[in-house]
């Protein structure tokens, strides 16, 4: 019960903070409250960590032998990796396909992916039962295991991301020779990154190929690796959109609105592809009837597919909506929520027999997960502050207009929609 109150409270705070940021209504007391909330989360997370390492996973998590993987795997690792997919998509777009106009968002995207993978690595370290043996897969090979592939991909791709992230740091430190070396090797490194990402994203889905009798048929499919990869690509793009929007907001810089629109359109296409494949797969396996059977699984599946895939896909494919940054960001947030729900569904709800849940996350698991998100955000903001991550300006310098979030789109947008925003409490 306590857990649920804690979840709801945290969600409410997160939504409130996001709304305040999105609508640029920062009450004077928001800043201290945000800081206090974040500090509370970190203290709770620290407490969780101490108890986890001294008393074991059973003391702090709701996991048990019937549900061996919990929130840390489902939300932090699976969803975290999916949300970091923007890194390889944008890197490939710029360096392999030479679409250079995406260059302004390359560095922040790569940085996000790098931080995401670092957090995933830390989450894995905390979650495995024998943390100090984390290096075993490097030397004790068992190449028949998907988990072996996953481990290697995490380690290798983190290395690749570290190399891809290094130029801003090297620039700041003035290590020109090293910087030159990194620049020469860019393309091979990016290609390696794309391959490793593709393998890694899909292999997280492959992990579940081995449980045809356990994973609910709405999610189990021989195509799981493909679904994981495709959905991650769409979600990764949406992360880039959301991140550009909020960093423009927080850092008071201009917005790359044209790039964001293009990304939104690409994400819509991929989401429609995903939706079509998912439907075809369900039909081919004769599981379409399960969608409307009314069980917990079917409801969450509907929520995931309608709210996290179909609705944002429709929104993002409408040009007028793409022109409104807030709608664009709203739809992207839906996609992100949808993919988190999908990964949690696969790892938790879908693995539960019938309506009986074997596992309920504890408040400590949630606190640590929130600590990852907030910690990652703080590190990102610090890095952006001290390193040359963002280009000097976006579409136009932020100073020239009072609200950096409306880069001249109000003229093209129907006035009614703009008015709808003003209706929100200020």
């Amino acid at each position, binding site marked *: 019960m306590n857990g649920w109150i804690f979840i709801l409270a945290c969600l409410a705070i997160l939504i409130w903070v996001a709304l305040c940021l999105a609508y640029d209504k920062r009450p004077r007391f928001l800043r201290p409250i945000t800081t206090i909330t974040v500090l509370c989360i970190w203290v709770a997370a620290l407490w969780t960590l101490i108890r986890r*390492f*001294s*008393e*074991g*996973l*059973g*003391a702090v998590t709701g*996991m*048990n*032998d*019937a549900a*061996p*993987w919990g929130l840390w795997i489902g939300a932090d690792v699976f969803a975290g990796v999916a949300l970091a997919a923007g890194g390889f998509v944008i890197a*490939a777009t710029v*360096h*392999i*396909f*030479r679409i250079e106009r995406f260059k302004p968002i390359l560095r922040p995207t790569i940085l996000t992916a790098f931080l995401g993978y670092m957090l995933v690595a830390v989450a894995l370290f905390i979650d*495995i*039962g*024998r*943390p*100090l*043996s*984390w290096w*075993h*897969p490097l030397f*004790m*090979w*068992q*190449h*028949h*295991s*998907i*988990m*072996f*592939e*996953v*481990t290697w991909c995490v380690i290798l791709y983190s290395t690749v991301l570290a190399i891809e992230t290094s130029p801003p740091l090297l620039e700041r430190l003035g290590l020109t020779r090293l910087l030159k070396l990194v620049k020469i090797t860019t*393309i091979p490194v*990016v*290609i*390696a990154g*794309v*391959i490793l990402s*593709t*393998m890694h994203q899909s292999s997280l889905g*492959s*992990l579940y*190929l*081995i*449980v*045809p*009798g*356990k994973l609910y048929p709405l999610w189990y499919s021989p195509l799981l*690796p493909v679904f994981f990869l495709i959905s991650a690509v769409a979600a990764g793009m949406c992360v880039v959109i959301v991140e550009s929007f909020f960093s423009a907001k927080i850092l008071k810089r201009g917005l790359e609105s044209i790039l964001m629109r293009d990304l939104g359109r690409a994400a819509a296409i991929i989401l429609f592809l995903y939706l079509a494949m998912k439907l075809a797969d369900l039909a081919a396996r004769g599981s379409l009837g399960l969608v409307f059977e009314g069980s917990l699984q079917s409801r969450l599946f509907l929520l995931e597919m309608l709210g996290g895939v179909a609705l944002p896909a429709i929104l993002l494919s409408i040009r007028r909506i793409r022109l409104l940054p807030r709608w664009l960001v709203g739809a992207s947030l839906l996609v992100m929520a949808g993919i988190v729900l999908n990964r949690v569904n696969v790892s938790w709800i879908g*693995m539960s027999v019938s309506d009986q849940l074997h596992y309920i996350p504890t408040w400590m698991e949630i606190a640590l997960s929130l600590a990852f998100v907030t910690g990652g955000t703080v590190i990102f903001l610090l890095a952006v502050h001290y390193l040359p991550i963002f280009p000097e300006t976006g579409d136009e310098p932020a100073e020239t207009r009072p609200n950096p979030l409306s880069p001249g789109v109000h003229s093209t947008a129907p006035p009614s929609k703009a008015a709808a925003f003003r209706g929100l409490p200020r």
Partner: protein
Amino acid sequence: MKKVKHTTGTSECNRRQFLQGMAGGTGLAVLSPASVNANEPEYAETPSVLVDVTRCIGCRSCMRACKQANDLPNNTDLTADFPGSWDQADLRFDQWTVVNPVKGRKADGIEVTRNIKSQCMQCLEPTCVSVCPVGAMTKSELGPILYSADRCIGCRYCIMACPFDIPKFEWEGGMWAVIGKCQFCAHTRLAEGRLPACVESCPTGALKFGRRDTMLFEARARIKTQPERYVNHIYGEYEAGGTAWLYLSDTPFENLGFKSDVETAPMPPLTWDVLSKIPIMAAAMAGLFGTVAWSLNRREASERREASETQEASE
């Protein structure tokens, strides 16, 4: 089956001798184990146990013997009055076999209570071995699946993947938690030519140890001679590609809580079919992206050169 005799007192025991001893120890094997239609001939010699559910009285001697033989703590009350007054016992990382009374309905609708022993089924093609990233789960030469904590990283994929939900995790273990499951006494008793502790302790002959083909033969013989007593199903013959533990029952297995949705094909190919294609896919992607990047780069470079040349020309 009678106790294996030939190896007593000798520490040197190779597999062939041991198995020959096993075959010689049972009268049925002499009949002709080769004629038995084992689903996989290569697993005919795997040490196996036939559990006759109808013969189990639920005394839990096997649980006690298992704890003793494997130095596991005795944390389940096994001293309560027999029969049936004790609590439900669950498999734990330090409790590798349990016997529980299970209520189930026979095919003719009569409700009965049967004592069901659970432990690792010792799959012939084990899922846990295939999913373990570090080879902490291994199939021994004899057949039983062994666990090595020295290699384990505690990822719990074996627990997730096991079609019978057997491996258990030490949730209270801080930094060095372990996985626990029945290892068929392979390193200790089998290697010395002795029976697994549970089989040896069984007072009613509900557990019978022998070569897998012999046990299948025995099971079929029992079904054939007493068709009114047994359901015509040997649980473990085909489940998950076949297991070393085989069950006979008078009540349909799904009514007694046995997993009825286990695939009959071996599980490891489900992931290996994908995994084995990865090198080719990676090479193809490297070639594709390399070509694209190289050609686009070259075109850009030549465009840049042309642009500068025209600029020079115009100047």
